[in-house]
């Protein structure tokens, strides 16, 4: 590019350099100019030096099999500590002989995530996948699950109500009657339940021994906090984004205030608030599980960020879509849920995945309030005085695991971005 001939002068150009084949590739990409050539040589030397030093430490002089820390204390890395501690790092203080439970819970969650990444699943199947997957995950983690009667009633009411609003003027008469029935049963049941006429019955599913959340640790905790943080923050982020775009001044003010407040403070302050202050906000005697409190903080935090992303998606929609929806005679809810959101969300999926990567990493902050996420268990593995003094090994191992997760997700998001753009690139 730099050897452009001066204008107005004709010159006999040299024949084009052969840039095919390996040699050609090297010439084109590494030695295209003098400066480039020098850069390449310097970099090769530097990288070579670092790599040889690293490999010497990490592979050639490393110890993979020592039985205790003191045996390991030679020149190179002590990977034996990873061999010794990996189960603790992955599963924390979950009862040792039951480690298969968090293992399968992790597998279930990964399966959920992988299945959801397939675009063919982006329909009613998602709900089934997440329902079943979450049930399996929490059943494995808790060991027992109680589904109270009010939950069923609430779900009936919610399904009925949502159906009634969304399918108004669209659904067949029979379908609408089904929604009405569901909503009526749910509402009546809930009223009776609150009045104390219906008993506090709950469906108990308890095939395994109960494990409380303060014994949970490691990878499942990180995955649950990040995944469910996003899942719950999602609807609430949508509401915030719609609120921020609303023309009603009070609603808009509330949403803007909330979003800016949350985005202006560090996650740590929310976590401290959740762990330290939340109980003071509630009536005396009402307490929440510490894990759930951290989850609430993550959700609050994620919601504000997701709202901003979704707002971007909403803004990118052409006006004609709104006008067309109005022309169809749809009400606000129908317009939003059936026309606007499906299109807006499609645009924001890649940035959402990037946000998810961010939360996957940010959940590591919960270690500051004493929850044993993956980074915290890795940290705890260093405490054992018999195995003290190998922080590099443990942290590299943990970093490697984090990297695999985040990198694969970011690759996926990039691929998806290209795929989704293909449709709009006409």
């Amino acid at each position: 590019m730099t050897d452009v001939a001066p204008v107005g002068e004709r010159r006999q150009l040299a024949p084009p350099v052969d840039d095919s084949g390996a040699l050609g590739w090297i010439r084109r990409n590494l030695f295209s100019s003098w400066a480039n050539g020098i850069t390449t040589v310097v970099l090769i030397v530097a990288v070579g030096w670092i790599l040889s030093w690293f490999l010497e430490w990490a592979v050639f002089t490393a110890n993979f099999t020592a039985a205790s820390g003191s045996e390991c204390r030679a020149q190179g890395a002590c990977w034996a500590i990873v061999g010794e501690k990996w189960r603790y790092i992955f599963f924390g203080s979950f009862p040792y002989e039951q480690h298969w439970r968090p293992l399968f819970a992790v597998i279930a969650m990964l399966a959920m995530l992988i299945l959801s990444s397939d675009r063919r699943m982006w329909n009613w199947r998602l709900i089934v996948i997440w329902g079943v997957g979450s049930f399996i995950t929490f059943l494995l983690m808790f060991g027992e699950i109680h589904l109270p009667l009010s939950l069923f009633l609430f779900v009936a009411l919610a399904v009925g109500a949502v159906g009634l609003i969304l399918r108004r003027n669209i659904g067949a008469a029979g379908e609408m009657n089904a929604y009405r029935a569901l909503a009526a049963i749910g509402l009546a049941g809930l009223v009776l339940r609150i009045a104390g006429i219906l008993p506090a019955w709950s469906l108990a599913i308890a095939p395994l021994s109960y494990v409380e959340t303060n014994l949970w640790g490691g990878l499942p905790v990180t995955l649950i906090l990040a995944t469910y943080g996003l899942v719950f923050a999602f609807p609430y982020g949508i509401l915030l984004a719609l609120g921020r775009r609303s023309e009603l001044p009070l609603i808009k003010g509330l949403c803007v205030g909330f979003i800016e407040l949350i985005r202006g403070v560090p996650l740590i302050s929310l976590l401290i608030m959740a762990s330290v202050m939340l109980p003071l906000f509630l009536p005396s005697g009402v307490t929440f599980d510490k894990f759930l409190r951290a989850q609430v903080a993550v959700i609050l935090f994620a919601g504000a960020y997701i709202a901003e992303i979704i707002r971007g998606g909403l803004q990118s929609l052409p006006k004609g879509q709104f006008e067309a929806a109005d022309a169809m005679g749809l009400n606000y809810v129908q317009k939003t849920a059936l026309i606007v959101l499906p299109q807006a969300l499609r645009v924001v999926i890649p940035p959402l995945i990037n946000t998810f990567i961010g939360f996957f990493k940010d959940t590591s902050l919960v270690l500051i309030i004493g929850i044993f996420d993956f980074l915290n268990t890795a940290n705890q593995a260093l405490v054992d005085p018999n195995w003290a003094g190998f922080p590099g090994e443990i942290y590299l191992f943990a970093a490697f695991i984090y990297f695999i997760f985040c990198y694969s997700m970011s690759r996926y998001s990039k691929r998806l971005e290209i795929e989704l753009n293909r449709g709009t690139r006409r």
Partner: protein
Amino acid sequence: MRNTVLAAAIGLAAILPTHRAEAGPTLDAVKARGQLVCGVAATAQGFSSVDDKGKWSGLGVDLCRAGAAAIFGDAQKVEFVPLDAAKRFPALQSGEVDVLASNSTFTLTRDTALGVDFAGIYYYDGQGFLVARKLGKRTTKDLNGVSICLQPGTTTEANVVDYFQKNKMAFKVLPFDKVEDMRKAFFDGKCDTLTADLSNLYATRVAYAPNPNDFLVLAQAISKEPLALVVRHGDNQFADIVRWSLFAMIEAEEYGITSKNVDQAAAMDHPLLKRMLGVTPGMGKALGVDEKWAYNIIKQVGNYGEAFDRNVGPNSPLKIPRGLNMLWTQGGLQYAPPIR
């Protein structure tokens, strides 16, 4: 919009009240009344006794004065109500008195079922023996085979029986129904030893013995009688003031602060002393009293050692040795948690 957010945050901060200023009911009542009402034992020499001019003195009395000094900055703002053993707890429960310094033993039943709180042990007492010096007994272990003047059916008797049985010693009991008879019998030489709480024995020796030096109180206690200040259940702030007034006196002794050198101590550049004496503020506020509370106590009442020596110790007729009531640093039990 962003300014609104900030304003809202500051506004939220502003509506949080400062309600520590609002005091507990007892403290309010005491302050409104202008004096502390303190229940004391009617006559317990060295602990609470009144002279001809109506002036009260004693260890328990000094503790009440300390409370008044903490609350009002004036140790004289106390009214003493003499109470006998049966009336003291009802008087406290009914609100007739604010605090009891009436030689009440801290026990489980009183702590729980009576609806009172024990706010600090000011004297570790215990049951002991008074013997005639000429008998040659020097410790309780020497008492094998003695005859004992006793009131039957009391815990005093039970303790004696326990102790002698446990140590496989023989003894003989001379039962009396009335204290006066029993005392007279002992000084008349009808029995070898008289048993009661140690503080009581010292007082008895001074008051009734024909020649106190002919009699000896054996140092060892065979039971525990921790005498504590008592307040009503439920008003934690007032209980805290009473408790920490006592602790301040103990702490002052530990750091060598007396009524005489307290002014110099307050001028010293020592973080602990500064904090305790209110030069560095904070403690008074936490208690809900003036920052000079501990200074006032020490200046007007003295530290625990001074109060002890003056009322029951070497400078008093009783001459009770400090024993268990020495500071923890000197082998006793008197220990105050840090004032910080």
